[in-house]
């Protein structure tokens, strides 16, 4: 039961957070509808966490934020390269062949808005403060980005990952929002939401 309760709770967090994040995205994309998959919440061993992002050599755009405040943790927003370019085209109304400075800056801001929306939703729900850092952005091999996120979060044993995938209805855009809460703070968050032992 312990396990189910915790996973259910995390799924709900993922749902609420991603709901707000994708609403923000949808508004920026002038109402383009987004479909959100049911959040995939997993407690992974180190080895499983390492293999969590498939296609280690695939080029992706990764936006990374450190969360401070009452609940500390790390958030990543990961997009395949093609999806990132399509997003930039929708945001700028110009064709995007390569991700130049302007395009990266647009994506960084977009990631920032989505992540902030996600955290704001959690903060409202729990009365806790969750403050995002300035976002970092990288275009690189998925393995290198994911590995750097795990190292930044100092995941060495087990990791709780809340991953939500979303798709746009019209354009071929997909992405992942991943939240890695620090274990201790996460228990505090659960407490503040009225969940006793999880």
């Amino acid at each position: 039961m312990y396990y189910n309760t915790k996973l259910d709770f995390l799924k709900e967090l993922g749902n609420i957070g991603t709901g707000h994040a994708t609403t923000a995205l949808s508004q920026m994309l002038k109402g383009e509808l987004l479909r959100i998959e049911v959040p995939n919440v997993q407690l992974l061993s180190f080895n499983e966490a390492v293999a969590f992002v498939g296609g280690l050599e695939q080029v992706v755009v990764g936006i990374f934020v450190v969360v401070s405040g009452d609940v500390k943790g790390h958030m990543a927003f990961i997009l395949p390269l093609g999806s990132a370019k399509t997003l930039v085209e929708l945001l700028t109304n110009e064709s995007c062949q390569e991700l130049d400075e302007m395009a990266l800056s647009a994506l960084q801001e977009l990631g920032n808005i989505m992540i902030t929306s996600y955290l704001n939703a959690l903060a409202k729900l729990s009365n806790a403060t969750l403050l995002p850092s300035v976002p970092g952005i990288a275009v690189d091999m998925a393995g290198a980005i994911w590995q750097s996120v795990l190292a930044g979060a100092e995941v060495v044993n087990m990791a709780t990952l809340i991953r939500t995938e979303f798709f746009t209805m019209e354009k071929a855009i997909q992405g992942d929002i991943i939240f890695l809460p620090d274990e201790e703070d996460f228990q505090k968050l659960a407490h503040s939401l009225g969940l006793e032992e999880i």
Partner: protein
Amino acid sequence: MVELFVNLGQIHSLKSKGILTTIGLGSCVGVTLYDSVVKVGVMGHIFLPKRRGSDNSAAAAPGKYADTGIPAMVKEALNLGAQKSRLQAKVAGGANLFPNLHLDAISIGEQNIIAITKHLDNYKIPILGRDILGNHGRKMRLTVENGIVTVTAIGKEPIQI
């Protein structure tokens, strides 16, 4: 030809022939040890500089950390017939993919490089090739037959180190 993939935190070795490959080095560091006389190659994919007290699994996976990984790599090379005095190291990775975050005065990647250099130095193993630091990810391959190490990055020509 055998190609063995070395995942994050792992150490693998080959003798005489085959290729050792590690993909997705960001702040992580790929380290190879090679003895050209007996053609023994060992590759590690090191995650953090120092073992955390909270990680009780390091005995099972010493390759996660520089302070446990380098001794484990040397031991593996010696087990396969290499001689310590002939071992040569090459190092790739230790990048900082998110430089604008300025989280630590010294990035995790650089801390990894410093720790690995120190531990190799303890064994008096020379580092013959390096492609380190910077802001991009890398892939590293060691061809065990001849000891050649190549490093690949997105949008760049592969280089030999």
